[in-house]
């Protein structure tokens, strides 16, 4: 009986692990050769209009999200943790939202989001499309290397393990 229980536990664990790995592998698109990121325009919380050049020299993770998107909110703690752990080593996360300014500001305050988030000024959805999200789903993350080239895109929420792997694999060598 105990042996059967152990066998079942092992199988269930492997099944869950396999499912998790399968999902993780299915939504990430790694570019064979990093592509220069297109010019996109975003408006910071202080009203300043910027392009991605604002963060050139950093490993930039752009996380498109919205307050009405449950998977987006699910991955936020992992994003905040990553910003805290890797910020000093060159990571910068930014969060353009497909949402109005009030909703974004309220949630950012409530969750104490530790990276810049920006409301939709009309440019967020076009930026997301330009950065490769043809399906329009959220969350959508784009990893851009310090030279301003797109390295990977991920459609869907990431676990902290996935996020950790994505960042640590791409941090500049000197800062790993």
């Amino acid at each position, binding site marked *: 009986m105990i042996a059967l229980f152990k066998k079942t536990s092992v199988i269930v664990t492997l099944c869950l692990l396999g499912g998790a790995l399968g999902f993780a592998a299915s939504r990430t*698109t790694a570019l064979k050769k990093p592509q220069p990121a297109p010019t996109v325009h975003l408006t910071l919380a202080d009203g300043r209009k910027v392009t991605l050049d604002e963060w050139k020299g950093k490993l930039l993770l752009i996380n498109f999200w919205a307050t009405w998107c449950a998977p987006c909110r*699910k991955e936020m703690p992992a994003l905040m943790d990553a910003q805290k752990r890797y910020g000093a080593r060159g990571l910068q996360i930014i969060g353009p939202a497909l949402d109005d300014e009030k909703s974004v500001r309220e949630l950012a305050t409530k969750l104490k989001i530790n990276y810049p988030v920006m409301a939709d000024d009309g440019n967020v959805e076009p930026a997301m499309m330009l950065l490769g999200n043809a*399906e*329009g789903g959220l969350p959508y993350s784009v990893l851009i290397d310090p030279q301003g080239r797109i390295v990977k895109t991920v459609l869907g929420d990431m676990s902290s393990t996935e996020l950790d792997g994505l960042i640590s694999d791409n941090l500049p060598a000197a800062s790993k």
Partner: protein
Amino acid sequence: MKVLLLAVTVLFAPMAIAGGFTNSGNTDTILSVDDAFRIMPLEYDGKRLRVSWEVAPGHYLYRKRLQFKLLDPAVTELPPVQLPKGISHHDEHFGDVEIYRGTTLVADFAWPKTAPTPHRVQVRYQGCADIGICYPPQTRVLELIAPTAPTP
């Protein structure tokens, strides 16, 4: 040995399925919002007005995010919508919500005899996919092509 084989099969089968479904790492086969929630032509038979969607397997629409507005004729308002009972779903961020998944969803309006024929209806809806993505709220304007024969 049998246990080992079974364990390997169980470990890799979901990966193979997920990989096959999404074309091995390519996101092209993740459904577009219009394929995930296929909205059907507006139906009106003199007694009822219907808006319907085919919700693809693995996808769901939120009941509370369904909105309807009569655009033409603008002189009258839509009667209260009748919706089927959805599935109760607990979301850690949004609490208890009702969703419609993997089904034909029909939003039904009993049309008063005295009301003019509806020509254009604006519909808003929002939903997600089980794989952990949500689609932005969608707005569509549906036009009545031709009234259907009244149901007996």
